[in-house]
């Protein structure tokens, strides 16, 4: 058994996580000025951006710097009459934004503003005959959407409204001989898709259907010499895979198979220590997406001073407990 105290001391020696800088960075992104190209491209990612930014703040213990009433008000306005949520006011709903909206409301302890049946009916309507889920009414199918649907319904206590057996069987049909999962049956194993499939199986209590040793080995083979993790064989390491790979390893109880110290070091090396934020690889430009995944990864690695995050729901553990244990 590895001694965690030793790990904590090592982490502190490795150089600190620039918490205040990252908080400042997240807040600055949320107030970005007009004329920013990034903001134009990100227009449709606003709801996801809110989730990444706010979860990061919560993990760093700084969620109280935002006005939760105002955010809740905005989220309500992003809801479509179908029950789904859009990325921003006046846009079309998509399952991606619906989960982010529910997650942010969960973070802010505002799930009570939701008409739960309306939201869950929207998701239920996206399940297909074969058990898979579409992302919106246009029918793109992907195991990402299976995860999103199951996660969302579970947070709303409405898992009983779908055909769970079919949903689970569809995910299993995307399992490959290497133990991993792809986006559709036959699709290459990819750490992001593995997170979605394992997360969905965890949420539905079906983890016994995963070959944990085989998948665990594939996942720990993702760690490269620099300590970082890649998402597929022979690809470059990237901070976001700290989340996809680590959370999957934790869910199947195999996280001790990678070298945690080396991974912590890799993530800390991707920080912009002057202006805040975390990038995909050392010395690249930072963004909110990788800042969130870096901090969430450190949370899974039990980095001191970062709140614990739940690997399946991608929300702080205290938030998940509040929802399922009523505390």
């Amino acid at each position: 058994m590895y001694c965690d105290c030793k790990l904590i001391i090592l982490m502190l020696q490795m150089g600190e996580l620039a918490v205040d800088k990252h908080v400042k960075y997240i807040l600055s992104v949320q107030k970005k000025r007009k004329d920013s190209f990034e903001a134009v491209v990100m227009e449709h990612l606003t709801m996801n951006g809110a989730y990444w930014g706010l979860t990061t703040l919560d993990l760093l213990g700084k969620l109280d710097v935002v006005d939760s009433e105002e955010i809740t008000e905005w989220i309500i306005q992003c809801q479509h009459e179908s029950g789904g949520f859009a990325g921003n006011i006046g846009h079309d709903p998509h399952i991606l934004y619906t989960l982010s909206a529910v997650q942010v409301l969960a973070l802010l302890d505002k799930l009570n503003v939701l008409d739960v049946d309306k939201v869950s009916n929207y998701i239920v309507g996206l399940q297909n005959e074969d058990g898979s889920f579409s992302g919106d009414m246009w029918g793109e199918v992907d195991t990402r959407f299976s995860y999103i649907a199951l996660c969302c319904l579970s947070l709303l206590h409405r898992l009983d409204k779908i055909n769970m057996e079919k949903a689970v069987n569809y995910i299993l049909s995307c399992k490959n001989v290497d133990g991993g999962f792809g986006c559709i049956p036959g699709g290459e194993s990819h750490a992001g898709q593995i997170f979605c499939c394992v997360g969905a199986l965890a949420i539905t209590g079906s983890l016994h259907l995963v070959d944990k040793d085989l998948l665990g080995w594939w996942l720990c083979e993702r760690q490269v010499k620099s300590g970082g993790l890649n998402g597929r064989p022979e690809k470059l390491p990237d901070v976001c895979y700290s989340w996809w790979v680590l959370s999957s390893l934790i869910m199947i109880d195999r996280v001790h198979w990678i070298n945690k110290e080396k991974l912590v070091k890799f993530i800390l090396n991707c920080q912009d220590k002057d202006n805040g934020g975390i990038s995909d690889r050392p010395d690249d430009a930072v963004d909110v997406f990788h800042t969130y995944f870096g901090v969430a990864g450190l949370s899974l690695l039990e980095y001191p001073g970062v709140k614990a995050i739940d690997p399946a729901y991608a929300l702080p553990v205290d938030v998940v407990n509040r929802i399922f244990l009523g505390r």
Partner: protein
Amino acid sequence: MDSDDDLRPEEMLPLSQRPEWSDVVPIPQDDGPNPVVPIAYKPEFEETMNYFRAIYLSDERSPRALQLTHLVILLNPGNYTVWHFRRLVLEALNADLDEELDYVARIAKKNTKNYQIWHHRRWVAEKLGTNAMAKELQFTRKILSLDAKNYHAWSHRQWVLQALGGWEDELDYCGQLLQDDVFNNSAWNQRYFVITRSPLLGGLKSMRESEVKYTVEAILANPENESPWRYLRGLYKGDSQSWINDLQVSSVCLKVLNSKTNYIFALSVLLDLLCDGFQANQEFIDAVTALRTSNADPLDTDLAKAVCSVLEHVDPIRVNYWTYRKSNLPVSA
């Protein structure tokens, strides 16, 4: 510039100054009274979006609406609403969908990892049916020639094969890609997809012999390559008797072990074989013994244990995994 489609917004008059748009009242974005996440817009972006909102809300499915969706797509190809609306307009106008495929190809040049574009392409191809097959295989081939691991392109290609056909050359295509880069895991995955799913090849079992030969060659050329080792295992899916009894599997392990370089995957496969019931002879014991780096280690009498000990040593980043394997060996191994 091969068509009017390719006009960029900054190259044309603002919509507000064009007579053909004078009857449309643009609708600005409603960010709510106190926008939490105020969005930054460039002026031309804002104007185009305002016109688009107007057309979208009035549900005008006209040629100028099609042109407008193009302008919005140029500004943000990730906007899924505009792609949805474009499909409605294409349907209403009964547009030439072959041309639409060419259009998507031009937009995809700069956005090969955009979900919306691939979804749109699939919608068009689905409508065209088998007529689109050759073009789709050609299109994905082109994208993969630039990025041989593009996940979207592979998904699309797998869909084309299953829905529209075109399996004839696929195994050769995988062979070509692996010749270019034998470390390309996507190509190995596609190869497995073909031999297990092609209606022309007779399935995994009838392909096994030739595939094992191919894979063993690839392994011997680059024993550090994770993909063919996993592929080899996949060739025996659901048939562990053949897996442990086929001499080609154990002998490729032995060859790599005896070379004494890049032998981690060979050891790992030998370990799997032993756990599955493979009976190793003295040659294997000698090969593993020769890899022990320190004589100070107590010699494991059990071969599987000895394999784990070597792996703990030569693959330190995953030492906990190999220790786990060591402590969970089946009694017989």
